[in-house]
Structure formats: structure tokens, C-alpha cells
């Protein structure tokens, strides 16, 4: 049976699929904005994600994690379209399993907790958008969307250890960006001053 026939014969199921899928529009759009850093590209990416989801809805198993399924489609489209292919073979400096364990030196530059609340929301978004894509996407999934490490690993097609090490690196970088911004904007003074 083709997908089209399946949709025709099971309109209620198809409608349930569409209803559930459109419920994730805002969250997908935000993810697309962070990935593409461009509102027009984000809209195109989201639209193409839904077109592809509709085409492959037979491969979605009802009751499983549709949000993760949609994110995986969007993420793959993003890499194919904007980055010239998916990043399985790209390796970031220090992106190995053991990167997680060199953490004791990560607190040399950091804002205090109460300083964070004084930062502008736009600057936090900028800091996220300045992360390399491989780090940015894991922050999006885990920190913004609340994915478990396991679900994030499935979306990204990498082992859980890689999710953890990328996340750690991303957070180190974010922390440093926010600290630098706090210094530049006079919210906090450098330790040497």
C-alpha cells in the first residue's frame, strides 16, 4: 500500500498525525531559528520538515516520541541543505569520550549566579547562536527542549557519551561567552582589575 492510499483509507489516523505534528510547530520553529540564525531560512526549514514528515508518516510509530522524530528530520535537513551533508565524520577538537573528564579547569572564567540575571535575553540567544553547530544542536535538544541524553543521542545519531561531551563543551563555551559579555558591558569587572 502506498502512503497516499494509507492516508485515504485512514483519514482519522492521518488527521491525528497532523494534529499532533502541528502541536510542535513553535518548538520546531525556535529550533530552526537557532540552527539557521535567519527567520526566512527557519521558516523554509520548518515547512520542508513538515512536508517530509507528511511524506514519511508511515515510518512514524504512534505512541513514540514525535517531537524527537520531527527534530531528527529537521536536523538532517539542516545539515544536508545548509552545511553540505550530515556531520557524522566531523570531529571537534576534544570531542571524545574523555573530554568530559577534564572538567576541573573549566571554572577559570565564569560569571557569578546573580550576574546572570542581569544579562539581556538577546545576549544569551547570541551566545547560543555563536556555538559551533554540533554544540548548538545538543544545547537546543537538552537545555531548551528538555530531551534526555538518550533521546538526544537518537536524534543526533551519536552515542550518549558524545552527547555528554558535546554538551559539556558547549556549556563551558556558553559560560565563557556570558562572562566575557558581562565584563564588556560592565556588569562584572575582570579579576585583574
Amino acid at each position, binding site marked *: 500500500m502506498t502512503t497516499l492510499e494509507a492516508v485515504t483509507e485512514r483519514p482519522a489516523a492521518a*488527521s491525528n498525525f*497532523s494534529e499532533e*505534528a*502541528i502541536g510542535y*510547530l*513553535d518548538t*520546531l*520553529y*525556535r529550533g530552526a*531559528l*537557532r540552527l539557521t540564525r535567519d527567520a526566512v531560512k527557519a*521558516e523554509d526549514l*520548518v*515547512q520542508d520538515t*513538515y*512536508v517530509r514528515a*507528511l511524506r514519511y508518516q508511515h515510518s512514524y510509530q504512534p505512541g513514540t516520541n514525535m517531537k524527537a522524530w520531527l527534530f531528527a528530520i529537521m536536523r538532517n535537513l539542516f545539515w544536508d541543505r545548509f552545511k553540505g551533508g550530515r556531520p557524522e565524520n566531523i570531529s571537534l577538537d576534544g570531542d571524545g569520550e574523555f573530554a*568530559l*573528564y577534564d*572538567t*576541573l579547569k573549566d*571554572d577559570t572564567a*565564569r*560569571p*557569578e*549566579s546573580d550576574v*546572570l540575571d542581569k*544579562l539581556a*535575553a*538577546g545576549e*544569551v*540567544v547570541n551566545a*547560543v547562536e555563536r556555538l559551533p553547530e554540533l554544540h548548538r544542536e545538543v*544545547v*537546543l535538544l*537538552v*537545555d*531548551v527542549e*528538555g530531551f*534526555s*541524553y538518550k533521546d538526544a543521542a537518537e536524534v543526533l545519531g551519536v552515542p550518549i557519551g558524545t552527547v*555528554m561531551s558535546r*554538551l*559539556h563543551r558547549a*556549556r563551558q563555551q*556558553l*559560560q565563557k561567552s*556570558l562572562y566575557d559579555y558581562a565584563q564588556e558591558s560592565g556588569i562584572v569587572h575582570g579579576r585583574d582589575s
Partner: protein
Amino acid sequence: MNCGDCINQLDAYVDRELSDAELATVREHLDSCPPCEDTFQLRSDVKRLVRTCCGQEAAPSELRQKLREILF
């Protein structure tokens, strides 16, 4: 648990990825170690800030309408 072990587990602690037993061990260390507690607080605050600041925008209504036409 020493400080190094604690720091290595802080991300998973902040992300609620630890078992109950692991969580209790980290919590116990944090309760007795102000520097690690500070680090935990900072990581937790950065995560909260990112979630809040990056989780605001809604999709444009034209996009929603266009998708409704595609999906239904």
C-alpha cells in the same frame, strides 16, 4: 566522593540523568562542599537561562496557516 568526581557528574546531575543512588551521593557532597555547590548553582542557572531565553518565540501565523493547508 571527592570534588573531582562530583564535578564530573554535575552535568548529569543538573540534567536529572543520574540514578537515585548516584543523585544522593552527589547531593551529599554538595551539601558539605560550598565550592562544588557554587559550581552546581552556576551550571543550573546557565541551563535555566538558556531554556528561558531560547524558548520564547512563536512561529509566525502565516507559517502556521501555510502548514495547516499542507497537513490537513
